[in-house]
């Protein structure tokens, strides 16, 4: 049968194989690039960490057992103490405060945006959140130092009759990091909620659900894996957040869960060492890599955990 395309010239495809070869190569190269970078980072990180532990004055038992972190005290290895717990504790306090604020607030905001908000409100609220996401973290740091801490002290005075928050404290830093994470959690959660098919919402409405029941019994459970992803991404971001804690949380390694006290986080310590006047080959300099390796292990563990949770609670639709 004669078709319309018969009158056309066939495209010259002789270079097709070569073209395909180059394109394939380029794609492999691009994908390989990010993997290579990751590998290089891990190798350097753990290589230097091993050098740290190879030092005679350092033991695993001290690093993971001692509760004193005084790498900059004195000049001899004997006068320094390398127990990582105060730094881990500082990071965790900030993270718990930040996530404790950002997760509930973010999820509720996302439910509002996706299930309740009229189109006009949404059109206003979404960009507002994106502005929040665009604020440089150093600004949040200043905000915590010069605004949140005084406010916290004001509240403290109201309840206890005296100012209790130190100039640098984990509470203000945690709140600021929470505000930083809010847009991440909100927008990822909202994406997950909106991806739930309309047919499921209709099914729930058709059975006589209220809007709230539709949201909480159908939409949120169906989007749970996305919400868990959002939460874990936010936690990883919080643990790795540096500028805010360096500015507002202080620089005294302190094994305390009291949000009124100053702490040093793992990232805060790294900033102090990398930016300070320390020999590039000294033991305190190498300790930075050991802390970084612990930080990496924590975020990596979180990613794995997140994967497990996602598989376990999946309500695929």
């Amino acid at each position, binding site marked *: 049968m004669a078709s319309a395309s018969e009158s056309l010239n066939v495209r010259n495809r002789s270079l097709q194989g070569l073209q395909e070869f180059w394109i394939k190569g380029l794609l492999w190269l691009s994908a390989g690039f990010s993997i290579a970078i990751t590998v290089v980072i891990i190798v350097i990180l753990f290589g230097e960490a091993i050098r740290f532990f190879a030092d005679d004055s350092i033991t695993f038992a001290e690093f993971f057992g001692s509760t004193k972190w005084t790498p900059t005290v004195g000049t001899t290895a004997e006068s320094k103490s390398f127990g990582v717990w105060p730094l881990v504790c500082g990071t965790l306090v900030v993270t718990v405060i930040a996530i404790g604020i950002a997760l509930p607030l973010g999820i509720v905001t996302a439910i509002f945006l996706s299930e309740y908000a009229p189109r006009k409100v949404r059109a206003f609220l979404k960009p507002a959140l994106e502005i929040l996401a665009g604020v440089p973290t150093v600004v949040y740091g200043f905000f915590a130092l010069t605004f949140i801490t005084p406010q916290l002290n004001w509240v403290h005075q109201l309840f206890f009759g005296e100012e209790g928050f130190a100039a640098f404290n984990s509470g203000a830093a945690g709140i600021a990091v929470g505000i930083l994470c809010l847009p991440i959690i909100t927008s990822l959660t909202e994406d997950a909620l909106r991806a739930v098919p309309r047919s499921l919402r*209709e099914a729930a*409405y*058709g059975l*006589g659900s209220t809007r709230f029941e539709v949201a909480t019994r159908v939409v949120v459970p169906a989007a749970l894996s996305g919400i868990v992803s959002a939460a874990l991404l936010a936690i990883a971001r919080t643990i790795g957040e540096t500028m805010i804690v360096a500015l507002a949380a202080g620089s005294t390694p302190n094994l305390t869960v009291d949000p009124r006290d100053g702490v040093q986080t793992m990232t805060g310590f790294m900033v102090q060492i990398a930016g300070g006047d320390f020999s590039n080959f000294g033991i305190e300099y190498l300790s930075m890599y050991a802390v970084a390796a612990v930080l990496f292990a924590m975020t990596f563990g979180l990613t794995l955990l997140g994967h497990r949770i996602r598989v376990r609670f999946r309500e695929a639709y």
Partner: protein
Amino acid sequence: MMTDQPAKTASASAGTPARAKSFNATKHNGETPIIRQSAEVFAERAQNTQLGETAITISNFDARYGEFQALKNINLEIPEKSVTAFIGPSGCGKTTLLRWINRMNDIVPEARCSGKLTIRELDVLQPRLDVVELRRRVGIVFQKPNPFPKSIFENVAFGPRLHYKASRSELADLVEWALRKSALWDEVKDRLKQSALGLSGGQQQRLCIARAIAVGPEVLLMDEPCSALDPRSTLAVEDLIAELSKEYTIVIVTHNMQQAARASDSTAYLYEGELIESGPTHQVFTNPQNPETERYITGRLG
């Protein structure tokens, strides 16, 4: 009791002009089992149809989406405990009409309506109506099976949990009752805790029907419930509809002429937002009063 002459002839012996008219005209081979069965069912219905009291009354009903007028001045009475089919070409407004009966269109921002729509004494369109209670009384089954991504048990228990305080064992009894009623129990009784998404399309649709009847509605709305199903599942769902119509008032939207013919007691034909004809199914199919209805039914329109 409707006793039309042509319909009676159809019931007397297969292959009469009446049957030829309603089925051959829609381009189906009269020899396939489905058609033979439908012919029998249809003929039987023609004999036995006895429409009861009016359950749903629709009068001077208009509906619009924004500027677009979807329905114009609909007047229709839907009898209780029987199956009423809405037929008509795509975009004629039959689904819109169906979705106003339980106010599903409330969640469509642009949808508006006027006129009167009552279920028994209940004024469905009053602004202060408790839609939750309305939808408990008027269940709906959608075109594509839409089970929740939860277990089979949780799917059926979803509605009862919203509306009733039931103990664990009462809930289990209710779920079993609904699944038996929707002819699914024997297939799923050993895997109630497994995801409903593992069921076949036909099973999923019957599960959706079980889920709908579990809250104890009086009316069941079905929006093309078989259009996503294979012929075997379609027959299973149709049998179920016939069974359920003994207790429930069922309104079904369908594109499938055979389905309307075999599964419904009365039929309403809509075209471009207007109700062209309504009446007992065998009458509409074998002796349509309006030439347009005849053109659609015989496949020359739509």
